């Protein structure tokens, strides 16, 4: 029995010794909370592939400079707030990461924010647009434009191009949809006849909503949604609904446009600089790696925003393997005109990103800049 105990303690001692030694190998762990399952899983998978691809490129540079390598710990939030909360707790307590990229959904980012704030861990969301994120805490940043800003641009597009035509806002009934809708409404001329239609996340049949829009003779639909926009566009076409479409930055995903087909043509939406063809040329190493890891997926807007978050963290951390969340936070506020793959990036005093917006239009199934 004694020998058994002795062997156990020796084993434990060596285990601890090598365990500690492993941590001293000085890789810098960064967390990522992504929707790897659930309705938005395709976004999560594409972001993960993009992050891993860019990490490979970054680590090659780092090893050349003699910097410690970076490591990415990816957790699945299952597109649920409780999933996000368990993920952030695990990343903070077990992996002890100073910064996390994600979550995508605004509601999950808002659930994660107080925990990150209390533990002085930086959170950079690549996709949360809710206006509430602005005031979610000092440690909460985002590389996507705030819904407040996006709604304002969409409203100005309507004012400039379509006013005073009859307008319907069709939006998904969640944090993302409501906050974008509110910001849009705030910036629309009050005299405009305006209708609002909300739908639940699980709905797939929109024929009664679209019939109502058709029969009312509405002219413009501002559509705020996720993947279910595929059905909405298709069912609108089947009903021969002749309207002008205003879209959100979600429309900047080529995969989604491909799924919708020709029905998406003519949709105008605010977006930012994301020229995939140019990235293929200037970051060929990254893109070929991404193509390999993603199995041929197109680089979407959220994945590109995640990559920018990683590039900024890499730039801030440099060779400081002991960097704390607090230091990263301070340095993030000083980021001005960082050259990312989605254009020039700066953060304001609330951690919201400031980057140039461009108006895009879908033409024959491809996204082009609107002139």
């Amino acid at each position, binding site marked *: 029995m004694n020998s058994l105990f002795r062997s156990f303690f020796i084993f434990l001692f060596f285990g601890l010794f090598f365990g500690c030694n492993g941590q001293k190998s000085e890789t810098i762990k960064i967390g990522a909370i992504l929707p790897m399952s659930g309705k938005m899983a395709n976004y999560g998978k594409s972001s993960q592939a993009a992050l891993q691809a860019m990490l490979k490129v970054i680590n090659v540079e780092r090893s050349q400079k003699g910097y410690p390598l970076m490591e990415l710990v990816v957790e699945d939030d299952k597109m649920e707030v409780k999933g996000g909360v368990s993920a952030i707790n695990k990343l903070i307590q077990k992996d002890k990461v100073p910064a996390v990229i994600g979550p995508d959904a605004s509601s999950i980012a808002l659930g994660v924010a107080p925990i990150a704030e209390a533990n002085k861990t930086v959170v950079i969301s690549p996709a949360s647009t809710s206006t509430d994120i602005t005031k979610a805490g000092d440690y909460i940043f985002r590389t996507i434009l705030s819904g407040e800003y996006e709604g304002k641009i969409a409203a100005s597009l309507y004012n400039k191009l379509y006013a005073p035509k009859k307008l319907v806002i069709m939006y998904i009934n969640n944090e993302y949809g409501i906050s974008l809708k509110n910001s849009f409404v705030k910036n629309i001329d009050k005299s405009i006849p305006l209708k609002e239609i909300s739908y639940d996340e699980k709905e*797939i049949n929109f024929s009664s909503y679209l019939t109502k829009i058709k029969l009312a003779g509405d002219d413009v639909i501002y559509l705020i949604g996720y993947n279910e926009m595929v059905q909405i566009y298709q069912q609108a*076409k089947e009903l021969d609904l002749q309207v002008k479409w205003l879209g959100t930055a979600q429309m900047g995903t080529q995969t989604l446009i491909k799924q919708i087909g020709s029905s998406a043509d003519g949709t105008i939406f605010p977006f930012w600089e994301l020229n995939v063809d140019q990235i293929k040329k200037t970051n060929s190493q990254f893109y070929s790696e991404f193509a390999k890891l993603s199995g041929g997926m197109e680089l979407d807007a959220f994945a590109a925003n995640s990559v920018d978050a990683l590039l900024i963290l890499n730039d801030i951390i440099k060779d400081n393997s002991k960097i704390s969340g607090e230091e990263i936070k301070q340095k993030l506020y000083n980021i001005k005109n960082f050259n990312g793959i989605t254009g020039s990036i700066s953060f304001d005093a609330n951690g919201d990103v400031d980057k140039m917006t461009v108006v895009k239009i879908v033409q024959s199934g491809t996204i082009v800049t609107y002139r």
Partner: protein
Amino acid sequence: MLSNIQVVINILVTSALYLLVSISFASIYYPVKYFHIAHAAVITVASYFVFLFANQLLIPFSAAVVLAIALASIVGILFDILGYRPMRKKNLASLTYLIASLGLYVILQNAISLSFGDDTKVINTAEVTVGHEVFGAYITTVQILTICVSLILFIAVNLFLHYTATGKSIRAVSSNPELCNIYGISSNKIILIAFALGSALAAVAGILSAMDTNMTPTFGFNLLMYGIVAMIIGGVGSTRGLLAGSLLVATAQHLSAFYLDTKWMDAVTYIILILFLIWKPLGFSGKRLKKVEV
């Protein structure tokens, strides 16, 4: 006037789908007398089978549909053999079946999510085009198919139940399973046939719905709920009442969307259900409601 035609078309398409779901549910409910909620997963799994065969394994679409209906039928049979039959032997309360059935639903729905993902899947890969014009309103080919298939199957099931020996046995077991056993009709065998028939019908409903509006792993549940409401309103025990029930539910949903607000569609459905349960518990058919457990 034109406006009304589009609403009428929407009502017809929706009621055809509810009719098919309610016949499929009723053909199992009448003989077993408990709520087989896992039926929702059968509706869903059939369209995912089509997706697997036609879109991934590239089997011709019509063959994929036949194969999917057959497999969904087998899933229904397995539910009975592995899930409910051992419970029937122990003579458990019907609430136990309901809970077991919910469990079976969750298992199968999660299996679908894990295998195919939660995002929307498309089985109808044909180019989306403007529907056929009918007096200024529009209807797609799939929607016409839904109405025709639903009516044909409704008539066929009615004929089967009333004019074939097996159909009569199903009605006999629905009426009194113990007496059937005494007369030499094996109620277990008849229930198994009912599960096969109901699941095949559910598969057809699921595939038609997915061809029209695409699919997610949970789409079968909502469809089943409306089918059950149509069955209760139509009058449990009456197959013809299902037609009236489905029409009423679909009409109420589309008219409330049109005249009130689209947010009222679900609420109005359940308000009608509650009103029927209070004022006309026997449904349209007026037949005695022997036992309804929710």
